């Protein structure tokens, strides 16, 4: 009787939502458990790191790794799992694109530390104590991992075979990916395992999407009551759907809110944020240069609107000029 194929789920800099997404298979999880041997799944089951290290290289058929990479341990785990797995799959927006945590690439690490440990309104810390990668207390040495200056995607650290997009990925596309894996019917290496169409294709509001967009104003969602039956763009609400890959079947519009772009771009786009910027802004109604700023003011935060999930993967990746010093161990 041949062994069942080994599958693993692992998390790096993650909120745990991708792990929950697998739990959301609900009853279907039993079918998956039948077909594969889950060698590790930290949130729900026990695994021993040494056990995984002891496995022969490439003996795990697929590891689905979620979360961005920000510490040295995460880099090491990513490399170890790369060695042990035939297929290393970036699972979810953080692993694929950097995710919301990669918005931290707009700020220097020192600003984060200073605010969190000194300047926040509720912090009382006259001694300006900071967490140390190595500290002594009562004669005992304690260590913490070092975290990096830059939030990275998985493929900025190791080679990645496939991507399953979403924040989080839906059970439907995850199941489809696992089935494709087990049946050996995978697309070319480097593919994103989700439909290669823009979200508009799947959106039930598609019929009212204007053929000729012309924005007189951009409305922020709290300023307007959104009609649940009309295309967001037709209502002047910023929706990233046109520059976003389908696969979620327009979940957020089903909640009567616009798409924010979590599935990343289609294969025909390199920088998702630049593309949606281009599409939305080119189509404002201003005919005189001086009318333009007033309309564009309806999008007050271009980075947050266009690169909410993908700053780590954008062409710029990080704010220019930020420092990148290595942390020194305290003696």
């Amino acid at each position, binding site marked *: 009787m041949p062994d069942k194929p080994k599958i693993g789920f692992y998390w790096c800099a993650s909120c745990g939502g991708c792990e929950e997404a697998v739990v959301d298979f609900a009853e279907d999880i039993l079918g998956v458990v039948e077909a594969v041997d889950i060698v590790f799944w930290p949130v729900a089951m026990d695994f021993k790191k040494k056990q995984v290290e002891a496995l022969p290289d490439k003996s795990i058929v697929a590891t689905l790794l979620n979360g961005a990479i920000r510490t040295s341990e995460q880099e090491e785990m990513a490399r170890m799992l790369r060695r042990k797995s035939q297929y290393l799959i970036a699972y979810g927006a953080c692993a694929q694109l950097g995710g919301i945590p990669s918005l931290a690439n707009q700020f220097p690490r020192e600003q984060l530390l200073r605010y969190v440990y000194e300047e926040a309104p509720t912090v009382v810390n006259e001694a300006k104590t900071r967490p140390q990668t190595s500290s002594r207390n009562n004669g005992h040495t304690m260590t913490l991992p070092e975290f990096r200056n830059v939030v990275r995607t998985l493929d900025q650290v190791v080679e990645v075979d496939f991507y399953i997009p979403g924040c989080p990925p839906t059970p439907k596309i995850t199941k489809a990916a696992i089935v494709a894996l087990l049946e050996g019917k995978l697309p070319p290496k480097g593919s994103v395992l989700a439909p290669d169409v823009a979200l508009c294709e799947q959106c039930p509001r598609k019929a009212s999407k204007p053929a000729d967009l012309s924005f007189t104003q951009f409305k922020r969602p709290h300023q307007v009551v959104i009609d649940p039956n009309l295309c967001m763009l037709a209502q002047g609400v910023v929706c990233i759907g046109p520059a976003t890959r389908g696969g979620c079947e327009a979940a957020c519009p089903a909640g009567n809110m616009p798409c924010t772009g979590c599935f990343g*771009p289609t294969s025909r786009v390199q*920088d998702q944020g630049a593309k949606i*910027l281009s599409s939305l802004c080119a189509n404002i109604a201003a005919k005189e240069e001086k009318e333009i700023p007033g309309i564009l003011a309806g999008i007050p935060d271009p980075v947050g609107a266009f690169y909410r999930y993908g700053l780590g993967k954008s062409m*710029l*990746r990080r*704010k220019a000029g930020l420092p990148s010093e290595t942390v020194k161990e305290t003696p």
Partner: protein
Amino acid sequence: MSDPNWQPRIVAFFCNWCTYTAADLAGVSRLKYAPNVRVIRLMCSGRVDPQFILDALAKGADGVLIGGCHLGDCHYVEGNYKTVRRFQMLQRLLRDMGIEDQRVRLEWISASEGERVKTVINDMVEQVRALGPLNLPQQRKDWDREMAHPAEPAGEGQLAGQRAEPEAAHA
């Protein structure tokens, strides 16, 4: 650690009907201007995809210049309106990402304005020279030093949705 021999490198996207023709005119008139600009000809400034600008900066350009017809004169009627609308938002984005306004510039230069090509380029080159190199590729190398092993070239260029290069498998 600045290189004393550094020269600003500027990528320019000129529209065929106006600015590129003006540049031709500047050439034919033997006007002398700074040699730091690489010109790419497009049919219309409206063809300038913001991805081109970001890509140029990411690949090492210190500045990007876009040249198009004056508003109302676009050969394709609407093209340059789209350009200026996109451009204004892009500048705001670049500001938030630490890239100075003077590095990305939009100018309307008509076919007869050869002299203007010269003054705009000279002016931009000096402004960028004053700002210093942007050199995003080097900044990335500096960032990556913090990783125990720097990213493999295959990882660096691999973009979401793009096929991976058929490189040797990572160990």
